[in-house]
């Protein structure tokens, strides 16, 4: 059983075909990078897998389950976790509260409790603190999230995603807008924390892709034009064309 199966997946916005028939099988524990010029459909594909967008056509399976018609929140329970291109945290909540929500997500039935105080729940408190430490945020847990620096917010984002103990992690340009130093920090963090998980990462930074990915899928105009190991991609003519053609015309 694969982690993710995409069969003839299409997403049309009116006339425009953002994703135009993608077939992809991602085995468990594989680290797969999605590359391609802007507008190729990479983020759209990620959104289709996580359920943020609905399919126009095709089938998506997560660990063998057909999720094509399932809303995003149900797919989360199948082990899909996702981080966003623009930081998507809970700005006015504290770090503790932020991560706690990720932890709460794991036990849906328990959250329908309107009387027991969550603040006095030591177990969840300790787990949240531990997670914050793992992503190397060295701030008091009662700090408000919007007081964090951009880099720290990305780390928090990762913490929230990991709190749900996902088996599949979808990362949308996790190092966007970061300096080389910040990028390398986040990269180390990701390598450490995402070990053993299936990862699909959309990235433009090729050094990150080099370190993280065992497989590269290149998209252009909504379709997969190349699929292979990093080494194979470097020597693939179509890939070079797709990138350089765009670069020259930009």
């Amino acid at each position, binding site marked *: 059983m694969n982690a993710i199966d995409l069969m003839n997946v299409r997403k049309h916005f009116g006339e425009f075909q953002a994703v135009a028939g993608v077939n992809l099988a991602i085995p468990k524990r594989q680290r797969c990078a999605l590359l391609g010029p802007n507008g190729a459909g990479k983020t759209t594909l990620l959104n289709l897998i996580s359920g943020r967008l609905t399919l126009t056509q095709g089938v998506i399976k997560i660990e063998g389950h057909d999720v094509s018609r399932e*809303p995003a*929140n149900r797919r989360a329970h199948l082990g899909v976790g996702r981080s966003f291109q623009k930081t998507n*945290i809970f700005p006015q909540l504290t770090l503790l509260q932020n991560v706690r*929500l990720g932890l*709460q997500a794991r036990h849906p039935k328990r*959250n329908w409790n309107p*009387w027991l*105080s969550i603040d006095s729940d030591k177990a969840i408190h300790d787990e949240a603190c531990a997670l914050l430490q793992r992503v190397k945020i060295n701030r008091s847990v009662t700090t408000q999230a*919007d007081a964090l620096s951009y880099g720290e917010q990305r780390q928090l984002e990762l913490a929230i995603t990991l709190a749900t103990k996902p088996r599949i992690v979808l990362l949308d340009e996790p190092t966007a807008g970061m300096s080389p130093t910040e990028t390398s920090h986040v990269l180390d963090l990701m390598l450490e924390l995402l070990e053993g998980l299936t990862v699909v990462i959309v990235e433009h930074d090729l050094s990150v892709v080099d370190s993280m990915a065992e497989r590269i899928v290149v998209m252009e105009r909504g379709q997969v034009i190349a699929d292979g190991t990093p080494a194979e991609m470097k020597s693939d003519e179509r890939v070079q064309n797709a990138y350089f053609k765009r670069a020259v015309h930009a």
Partner: protein
Amino acid sequence: MTERALSSKLTVSLLLVMTTLLGLIPVFAVGSGTEFSADILIYAIMAVGLYVQLSLLGLVNFGFSAFFGVGGYLGAIFIMNTTRDLFVSLGLTMVICALLALLFGLVALRTRQTAFTMITLAFAQLLYVLSLADDRWTGGVNGLTGVPRPRLPLTLRELGLSIDSDAGFYYFVLVLFLLTLMGVWVLQRSRMGAVFAGIRENEERMTVLGFPVFAYKLSGFVISGVIGGYAGYLNALLFGFAGPGALFWTTSGEALLMVILGGTTSLAGPVVGAAVFIGISHYAVSFTDHWRLFVGIAFIAIVMFAPLGLVSIAKSRLMTWKPLKTPNKSQWAQEDTL
């Protein structure tokens, strides 16, 4: 002492003082003074109801008076037609309000935030128009007058308790007020409350994390509506009258003003806001016919100059002596996700 510890000690002491004072009111205030205090408490309950949906969930409801008004009518209708028992009529009122909130919420909560705001206003106005048009149940433009006070069950009556007197009714309202306050406070600190906060702060992320956001919003909406409903029930009982005025959009506006005036970020806010608003409007009405003008101006002034409300201002003055920061964008829950 840390700021948080100081804050909780302050809160607890204030609460004790407040409860004691409230308990003593009928002793000192005679007749209309007690009635006036009951009035304030009733509006405080309504404001707390709105707080649940506005501040905890971030649902901006411009027609909250719908529940208040409906609660009043339901109470009056049940008492005059079905049962003279207090708990039965109250219970029935709460159940019907819950159903109403459920049905309305199923439609309204599917819309985006701005559309939701407008729909809630429209819905309250619909109920107003209906109550005016109907003659059989709602008494039309005159409303339902002469609503008698229902009776406590036999066991309680034998103990000598009664809600017929001003003091008796006041204590009943006080008990419900304290229970409401306690209930919402507990809700706030619970797991469910944490989920509410998450939905308010970033609904989309909550969906991605796997929470059934719609179900939670609906629950909060229903809880909020029920509280508004029994506040309306008490209101009808206070003066023995249920009329369309409670459904008019201005009442919703006043409810909003109460919560904003007091401060949307803490449970004390709606209570303080209701007290201040009712207090001032009682006196303002005797000064000028045009007091609504000042309500409007107050609304605008508070939003523009003191958006965090009285409670935040008081807290910050008491604890840090520093000037109040102007609110950053996310103070006003969620506008970025429109």
